[in-house]
């Protein structure tokens, strides 16, 4: 039995395409003209800065070089070497991995849970729920962080007031070395699970109902249907969400920037925040560029590994 969705795609793939013959250079030119806005924007605002910052990472470019940027000194791999022995950088790296390691699974798991509930179980107020979960995604992160800062306020925050009403003395969440990062993770998960939910709902709806019917005829219960039908069918969606969320979370910046400024005692200092500090507070653009490229390599390697492992089981 073939799933209709698959059949449709196969048909779409085989649809006749316009023949690419004739036209010659004039045709190419038209193509480029249409692509030009993107190519120019991409070049000026992305490609060139990316290349320049790569070059910068081998220099000691700082404030003094502003007057004469070309006069900066080339230092080879010094910046990268210094990073290796920079305890604060390592601390920020550990923090970032902590955030990703806990935050990504939580976001995906809760997102999938809510998506399942909203696409099968809950029928009343479905739209209201979807909107509710998705709203944080489209709200300004700074506004959210400010509101959460109030929620987490030790004396007048809603969370501690609620805890207080049942007789628990709530901690000073953001000022505690152990609780600051979990607080930030909680906020990030809450903010991002709406996006995961929407993507998962789309993925779930693409799974043909007939598969579930077949499964139930074979005697599968709810859990078995989830385990043997939903999860395998969702694999591409999960992979996509995993990669996207990991990349996003590795760049943790706004949340600690607004809520904790990296504190207390650097407990929430992320790699991107450290890079920002070096690059824009101390204006050590060379060093900051090196940090950016190390982060880039880390992101690339992790994304590659995720593809590798999750796709290898693909038949």
């Amino acid at each position, binding site marked *: 039995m073939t799933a209709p969705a698959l059949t449709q795609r196969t048909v779409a793939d085989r649809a006749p395409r316009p023949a690419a013959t004739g036209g010659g250079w004039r045709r190419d030119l038209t193509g480029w003209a249409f692509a030009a806005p993107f190519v120019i924007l991409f070049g000026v605002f992305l490609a060139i800065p*990316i290349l320049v910052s790569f070059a910068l990472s081998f220099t000691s470019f700082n404030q003094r070089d502003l007057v004469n940027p070309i006069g900066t000194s080339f230092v080879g791999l010094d910046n990268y070497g210094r990073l290796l022995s920079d305890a604060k950088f390592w601390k920020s790296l550990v923090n970032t991995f902590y955030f990703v390691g806990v935050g990504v699974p939580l976001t995906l798991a809760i997102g999938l849970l809510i998506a399942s509930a909203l696409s099968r179980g809950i029928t009343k107020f479905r739209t209201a729920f979807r909107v509710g979960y998705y709203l944080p995604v489209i709200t300004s992160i700074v506004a959210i962080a400010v509101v959460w800062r109030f929620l987490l306020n030790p004396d007048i925050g809603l969370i501690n007031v609620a805890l207080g009403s049942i007789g628990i003395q709530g901690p000073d969440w953001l000022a505690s070395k152990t609780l600051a990062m979990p607080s930030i993770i909680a906020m990030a998960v809450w903010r991002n699970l709406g996006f995961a939910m929407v993507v998962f709902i789309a993925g779930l709806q693409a799974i043909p109902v007939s598969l579930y019917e077949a499964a139930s005829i074979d005697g599968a219960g709810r859990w078995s249907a989830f385990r043997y039908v939903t999860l395998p069918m969702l694999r591409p969606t999960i992979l996509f969400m995993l990669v996207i969320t990991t990349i996003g979370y590795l760049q943790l910046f706004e949340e600690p920037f607004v809520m904790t400024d990296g504190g207390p005692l650097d407990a929430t200092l992320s790699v991107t925040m450290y890079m920002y500090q070096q690059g824009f507070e101390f*204006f050590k653009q060379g060093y900051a560029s090196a940090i950016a490229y190390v982060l880039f390599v880390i992101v*690339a390697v992790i*994304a590659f590994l995720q593809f590798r492992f999750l796709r290898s089981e693909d038949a």
Partner: protein
Amino acid sequence: MRLASRATFLIVAFALTFSLSACGTNQGSGAPAGSTAPVTGGSTAPGGSTGGSSPAANLSGEITVWAMGNEGTKLKTIADAFTKANPNVKVNITPVDWGQAVTKLQTAIAGGTTPDVSQMGTDMMAQFGANGTFDPVPADIDPSQFFQTAWNTNLVDGKAAGVPWYVETRLLYYRKDIAEKAGITAPPATWDDLKAMAKAMKEKGGSKWGISLGTKNWQEYVPFLWSNGGDIADASGKPALNSQQAVEALTYYESFFQDGLTPKSVPEGFDITPAFVKGDNPMFFSGPWHLGLIKDAGGAGFESKWAIAPMPKKVTATSFLGGSNMVVFSASKNKEAAWAFVKFTADPTTQALWYKTVTDLPAVQAAWSDPDVASDPNVKMFGDQLKDTKAQPVSGSWSEVSSAINDTLEKMTTGGLAPQAAADEMQQQAESIGLN
């Protein structure tokens, strides 16, 4: 499947690219890199301008002046007085938000679009004045008319690159009524007095805390270092943050946290003013802007309950000096008018006018004999303290060194790091960053 995965990969590649470009887009939201200039509290009565006496050379043309924060919005008072004396010069004022000052200056310097004149925080001189960005100060400006420490903040590589505009320093604010309840009638003269007073206020005065000291603020720590005879850097400019004096100062500073006399953490958005009025934190060190803030927050009948006092003495009673200078950029096309304007701001009459406009304390000593400045005894106390002040070293890497000092202070005040170890760590950090 192949096609689909390629599409996914493209998305990932795009996201990767985005991750990099995101690095470059956050310039605008930056906090000021350790700018010491405070928010001045409210303005006082508009100045009954007396106009400045300035050399009526035949100046003409236009000059652009950048000024930050409150100063930027009120500078028109000075500009108007200047134009009155020099009718042919047009002064364009650009107010700059403190939060964006650093970025704006960087952009202007890199792009060659600097103004003629700009206000410059005393801690920003070396950062921006390197490589001759600022025009050297003309010889006819007499350094001795300013407070010595304020003048020294302008010495970039030993040469004067700017002129002091206004200054601020830190004094002790304390609750007189709570002190009296605790049996203390005089302000603390020594370090021991201060400690005993904090203790008495907490134990006998009924306050929640004895004092409020910053857990990670070098500006609150260094006055103790200086008062103990130490300094941030030695005579040759090398860091001296783990001297015997420094360890003693850190030990003293830390003892307030150790003994539970000052909070180890304050909630986000904590404001000392209401806590002081309420009586929770009956002492703290701050600058002149708190005079107005407390007056406003305390309301009627509160005036008699608080007072200010000079830094308590150890070897000396040295406080921190901050404030702003005025610089002329080398790239200015109208240096003559630009310097005339800067000289005008340093004129004692203008300085007094400026005090009346925004309550910025005059950097020119002669301005302190103006009846309007000297009449308020609290302000006069700041004037007296200004004679015993020091400032951070003029160093391009100061913002980074001070940030490292803050980090280590936090480890000591809240993380249990011993004072000796904290001093060593500060020294090691400062040496590896370098005070150039």
